[in-house]
């Protein structure tokens, strides 16, 4: 895996100030993303999974500098994104596009679909002006919309179709990386699978790299090659899909997998019920952030913060006692059993 790296974050951190009182004095910090380092290789789908408040969306925005990081750095093709000037940043953003969760609020209701998709090309000067309409119409077809969608407005489309528009917009300037933040979470089951398949097909056709942010482990398992599990702003585990679902080592990952409902009445996994709620990111627990809910926590976890260590090749875990908690049912990832 020592091939070229497309995207790399190093100790990336984002703290949001908590302001209180009349003078809006900063009384604390929300540690949304705390010292997160990972690498994304060209051509892969890298998944970031975690529950609400784990910092996965903030992380996605920080990479694009839609939110300025507090510290740490982001490298895209060996260039440090965090040091770019604003004009350099604009040019840099041509490389990365985003697909958002809510297909209703992420499209401008006053713009026609053709302009929405074509706007990025105008901003970044992609293609000859005369050619842009043709490119947009080709893209519409590629994402499965009718060519006459060009002159219509977003409200005329259903949720699934709008998400297709969002995907076409992201593709229009031929980015190298697409960050999809909960891109299929708002969709109905039958529409969701259409969009998942579309994203998989487009990835092959346009040789894309995806950073796929989601809370849904089943979708992440279906789409992603490598996966990072986050909890309260920290990385818990990073590894390949096969290892993560067959041999998860972090107790949080194991609990998460065991909590996913599976549509098969004969599927019985030893469900690990985590107690309590996710603690507030303003006052995260000392030591390992998961220790307050961890079923196998010990004394050391309360005081010492575990480092992210490569336990076996390509398998990074931040836990003092990795593997103490194991899943009871091995999940089938390779054989081709279908319904």
């Amino acid at each position, binding site marked *: 895996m020592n091939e070229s790296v497309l995207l790399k974050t190093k100790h990336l951190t984002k703290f949001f100030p908590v302001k209180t009182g009349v003078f809006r004095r900063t009384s604390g910090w929300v540690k949304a993303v705390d010292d997160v380092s990972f690498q994304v290789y060209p051509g892969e789908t890298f998944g970031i999974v975690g529950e609400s408040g784990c910092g996965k969306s903030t992380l996605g925005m920080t990479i694009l500098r839609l939110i300025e990081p507090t510290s740490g750095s982001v490298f895209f093709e060996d260039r440090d994104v965090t040091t770019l000037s604003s004009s350099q940043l604009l040019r840099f953003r041509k490389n990365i596009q985003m697909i958002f969760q809510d297909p209703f609020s992420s499209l401008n209701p006053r713009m026609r679909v053709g302009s929405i998709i074509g706007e990025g090309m105008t901003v970044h000067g992609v293609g000859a002006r005369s050619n842009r309409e043709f490119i947009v119409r080709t893209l519409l077809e590629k994402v499965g919309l009718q060519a006459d969608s060009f002159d219509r407005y977003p409200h005329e489309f259903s949720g699934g179709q709008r998400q297709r528009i969002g995907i076409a917009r992201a593709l229009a300037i031929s980015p190298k990386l697409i960050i999809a933040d909960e891109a299929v979470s708002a969709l*109905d089951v*039958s529409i*969701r*699978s259409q969009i998942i398949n579309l994203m998989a097909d487009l990835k092959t056709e346009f040789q894309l790299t995806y950073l796929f942010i989601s809370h849904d482990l*089943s979708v992440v398992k279906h789409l992603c090659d490598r996966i990072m599990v986050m909890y309260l702003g920290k990385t818990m585990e990073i590894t390949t899909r096969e290892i993560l679902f067959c041999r998860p080592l972090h107790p949080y990952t194991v609990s998460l997998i065991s909590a996913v*409902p599976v549509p098969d009445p004969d599927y019985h996994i030893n469900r690990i019920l985590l107690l309590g*709620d996710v603690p507030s990111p303003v006052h995260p627990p000392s030591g390992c952030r998961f220790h307050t809910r961890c079923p196998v926590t010990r004394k050391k976890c309360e005081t010492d913060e575990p480092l992210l260590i490569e336990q076996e090749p390509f398998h990074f875990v931040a836990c003092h006692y990795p593997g103490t908690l194991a899943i009871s049912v091995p999940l*089938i990832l390779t054989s081709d059993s279908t*319904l």
Partner: protein
Amino acid sequence: MNKPSLLLDVKDLRVFFYNDNKEELHAVDGVTFQVYCGETVALVGESGCGKSVTSLALLRLIDSNGRITGGEITFAGINLLHLSKKQMQGIRGKDISMIFQEPSTALNPVFTIGDQIMETIILHQHVNQKEARDIAEGMLKIAGIPDPGKRLLEYPHELSGGMKQRAMIAMALSCRPKLLIADEPTTSLDVTIQAQILELIRDLQQKLNMAVILITHDLGIVADMANRIIVMYAGKIVEEGNRQDIFKDPSHPYTIGLLRSIPRLDIHQEKLSSIPGMVPDPVHFPSGCRFRNRCPLADPLCQQEPSSALISDHHFVYCHHWKRKAELQAESFTNE
């Protein structure tokens, strides 16, 4: 084992809404099902299939732009549609309770948790303030809220999402209802919290011996929780059966397509199947079988309304061509 007694009998229920253009929207169109004491029945379907409207109709909570235009809802021998408003209030929260998807909007932000739970208790049980408070505290404890005495005095915003849902459950169950309607009870919650809440509902259901109507779009939750499953599409029931029937022998093309389009944790899927097209607009539902414009098996016969076919005991399907389901290869669903 004795056959459990019938609790709720819904016959040919129709709920129509009217939009600004005075067009009729047949949100629920001829829905018939039964719920027996102590069982869990899941109403499953995608948005707009009428599952939530059905549940609201059971409590006669349909908005003013809609109307229950036909059918019967018989609960414990009483036709709820014949009751006066006042009589209906005596049923809501007492015999039939409901928990909603979004606990933060379902709870009143200006009253404490205690006030809101006690309101139900005082309304339906002949108790004084002090006794109501004790019952409320007991319910919070049963619902797994730590330090219930303190929580009673707190406002909804002071509780986390999971805690709010527990408080809602405590409120819904405070009068020991015979039927609990849970409308997407865990959709807004994280997966580890979802597991806690589902476990709680299951546990309390056994303790109180109540029936549960679980409304959800998540077939994983259904497989985990339901005894019987009703699959809805565009305002109609398309298939009904027990858990094994629906998951092991799905017979309506829609059910089959839906099950195949879910990404799954437990098995490997090279490519997901997907149902082409989208749910039709409720003003212009197709005549006959409403799934026919997305169905790979559709032919001219489907322009006629399918009647129910009995596959096995308690397993019904509303499809002309269910016997041809073996023809539904995975590919027939993928091409768009």
